[in-house]
């Protein structure tokens, strides 16, 4: 057992500054270059899971010519096992709005949108109350950036940024071809920054603490802290803010029930890490990245059932437009069932593994591309459970 305990952090959920929108007010007085430099220096990478450097995303959008630009906060938290954005929006919405406003200043946008997961409708009255107060304050500050809430309708795919734009524009939630990327053509085909809820809070905290202090947390590749949604076979499920770059074995020591067999890092589209790899696995962009979901499985769990569950999810939540994802998900699911039933030989798993590789490199968006993550990591590590 490791002696060192994990470093619990209180950055995201930490108390508001004593004066409302104080950090925003002081940041608005700084130059855009200054803000971007701090962000770059901080090493902040997107908290939605993909980990794109936030400063670069903002810089590209700022540099794209155009009078009309948008800031979008992706609050369509749909990844199975992830529930941290809900908590952030419940406890510190002001930080989120402030982060969006800073982004609006940097890129030259006058309008921000929060695309809120359909199931989070109950939070709308509280969010609107905070938004009213936000709008009052920016008005006083003489800063023109309004924020509006748009509701999702329950499709997982709408968390994919370009599908989210389609949905916001009133279309069917289907990912677009990339390029062009949102930095040049996003919402309403205008240059748009879209970031995760948590990313915006991180931005604000960097503005408050300065990049040097922020950088003290985490590792070279994974700066700062991260809010984790811990679920599964754990005596203490819940939301925890931890330093990035921790080894998985220490995480399991702290959150597992003593019989942990595997941890699914990053939800259904993430990776399954088996017990034997806990020690060598780092949670962060240099190791296994995560949007926050940490699902712990103990030895009573069938990994076949876990995978079956994920594939059922993907089969239903694929938007259905591209072949590899729409049909590939169905084939993976039917395939493991056929092997389990003995209708197909165990070797068929190799065939499916190749298929998942093809899906990874040919699917139109991140959904289809990431199905292979859980599929290959579960099949590779728990092959006997797939067959017998």
């Amino acid at each position: 057992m490791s002696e060192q305990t994990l470093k619990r952090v209180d950055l995201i959920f930490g108390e508001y500054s004593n004066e409302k929108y104080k950090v925003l007010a002081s940041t608005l007085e700084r130059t855009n270059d200054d803000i971007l430099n701090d962000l770059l220096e901080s090493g902040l990478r997107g908290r939605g899971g993909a980990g794109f450097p936030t400063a670069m995303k903002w810089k590209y959008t700022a540099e794209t010519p155009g009078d009309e630009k948008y800031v979008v906060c992706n609050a369509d938290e749909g990844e199975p096992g992830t529930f941290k954005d809900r908590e952030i929006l419940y406890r510190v919405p002001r930080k989120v709005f402030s982060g969006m406003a800073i982004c609006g200043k940097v890129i030259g946008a006058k309008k921000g949108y929060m695309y809120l997961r359909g199931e989070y409708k109950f939070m709308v009255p509280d969010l609107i109350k905070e938004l009213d107060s936000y709008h009052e304050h920016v008005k006083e500050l003489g800063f023109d950036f309004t924020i509006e809430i748009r509701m999702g309708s329950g499709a997982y795919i709408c968390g994919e940024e370009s599908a989210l734009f389609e949905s916001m524009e009133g279309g069917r939630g289907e990912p677009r071809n990339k390029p062009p990327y949102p930095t040049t053509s996003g919402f309403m085909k205008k240059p748009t920054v879209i970031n995760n809820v948590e990313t915006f809070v991180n931005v604000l905290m960097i503005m408050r603490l300065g990049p040097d202090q922020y950088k003290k947390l985490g590792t070279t590749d994974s700066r700062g802290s991260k809010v984790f949604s811990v679920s599964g076979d754990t005596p203490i499920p819940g939301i925890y803010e931890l330093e990035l770059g921790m080894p998985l074995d220490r995480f399991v020591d702290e959150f597992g029930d003593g019989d942990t067999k595997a941890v699914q890092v990053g939800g259904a589209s993430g990776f399954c890490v088996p017990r034997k790899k806990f020690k060598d696995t780092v949670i962060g962009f240099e190791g296994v990245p995560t949007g926050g979901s940490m699902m712990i499985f103990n030895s009573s769990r069938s990994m076949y059932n876990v995978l079956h569950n994920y594939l059922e999810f993907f089969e239903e939540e694929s938007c259905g437009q591209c072949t590899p994802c729409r049909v590939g998900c169905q084939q993976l699911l039917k395939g493991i069932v056929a092997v389990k039933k003995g209708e197909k030989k165990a070797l068929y798993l190799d065939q499916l593994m190749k298929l998942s590789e093809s899906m990874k490199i040919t699917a139109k968006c991140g959904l289809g591309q990431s199905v292979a993550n859980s599929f290959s990591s579960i099949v590779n590590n728990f092959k006997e459970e797939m067959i017998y």
Partner: protein
Amino acid sequence: MAKNINLTIDGINVTVDEGATILEAARKLNIHIPTLCYHEDLCVAGNCRVCVVEQEKVRNLPASCATPATEGMVIHTNSMKVRMARKHIVELLLSEHNADCTKCYKNGNCELQGLASQMLTGDHLFLDLVPDKKYTIDMFNTAIIKDDSRCIRCQRCVRTCEELQSVSALGVAYKGNKMKISTFFEHSLFEVVCTNCGQCVNRCPTGALIERNYIDQVWDAIYDPNKHVVVQTAPAVRVALGEALGMATGKIVTGKMVAALRRLGFSSVLDTDFTADLTIIEEGHELLNRLKKALVDKDPTVALPMATSCSPGWIKFIEHTFPEYLPNLSTCKSPQQMFGALAKTYYAQKRKLDPKNVVSVSIMPCTAKKFEANRPEMRSSGYKDVDYVLTTRELGIMIKQAGLDFEELPEEKFDSFMGSSTGAAVIFGSTGGVMEAALRTAYEIVTGREVPFDGLNIVPVRGTEGEVREATIKIEKVKPEWSFLEGVELKCAVANGLAHAKTVMQNVRDGKATYHFIEVMACPGGCLGGGGQPIPTNKEIRTKRKMAIYEEDMGMPIRKSHENPEIAEIYKEFLEKPLGHKSHELLHTHYTPRKRY
């Protein structure tokens, strides 16, 4: 000037304009990258993923149809990764697709089948998903059949319906494994805003959208010794039928087509062009009548602009979308329906046949004609005026079934009467043709002189794909009885493709444009690009057909409808006068409003 982009494909350097895709660059090098969802007439979807290629230093395989070429890009179209991925994708499509090819109407003309045979998939790498899918076939429509089991979800039809036609009868429904192409509340195509134009059929890569075929019924009629089977052929068929039988695009095959129809056993081979000429006489007088009512009688109820009514896709479109403008439609039936009504009256009398034994068949470049023939409005002869409508494609199939060597057939002439026609009738097949033909006649009625255009070619009204044509013809030195038209500038608009028809009608409705006469053809390029024409279709093919149509016009001895001798004869023997009582009864009709939903 567009910027030049240099890239390397399969080791060969190529330069393209900025904005060109990898696919376009590859085509420039004659490197064939397979595609399925891609179609030149439509926006890029990038959803089938068949066209993926490998780009050096990039992890994922980009879809070549949707990815712009960038400077210094190094592309491989046939690497190990690409071959594996492409094979997987085609196998996945096949696993979801009802691949019972010998039972499919598109057998032999299916892009998925072509791809499968080209790649020699054959392995059935994956499980068959078809049995679980509970696919449905929409067989209720009289014109188009939609078989979801053949659908590969490429969305070409959806894009066609929305972009080219602004109809949006077809859309995507559900998601994931249940995703499918469907209609409003999954109603039959028969019950929704579908205009039956068949543009989706022309672009469907598989057999998911096909015309309802009446080949067997027509054979039965031909073999029935008690039936007299009359066949009429539309103007646009003669410039496209060759394509369905392996000939080059844009060949005029009128004579061979007549010979083939005779050999198939039709009792009489006649020409829709005859009734196209008749349409011009009736419609021309109708226009002049409306102008007189408006200008002389100052009748406020007269509906102007008058719009043509030859295109049944357009008729259904206006019924659904602009029902308040139904009075503006010419009351003339389409040439097909005029022909049908006359076949069972005038023709039957003249040939001393009992009309109940006359079977009237038409060969059309169109799927909407099938719907039109089944309309309740189209029974004025006391019988169903046109019994069966076959597309150009169906005729091609019948010719193949009969084992005729089409290219070697002699050139034969249409039977008479109702077989003679003019160049004015031929150009009905191209956008702007009805307008031009009508002007050739109406101008001469009013002024006694030929239209003041070189060689009768009224080029300003000849439509162009992708735009609305507007033209103004000044009427001068009129005959005394038409004095009210002296100096009038006749304003015309010509639209092809329903998206452009919609623009014209919106402009009329919003008062942004005033016209006297509007010609609308539902399909891109007019009938030559009709939903019943040979597949594939693209702008190049349609342009060649168009050139052939105007060539045919130029080659006709008579090029003005009112000079067709059989037209004079039919008025003398049967119809008496244009817009007369008989005409009204047999050749004119009215349509009724329909709802959008």
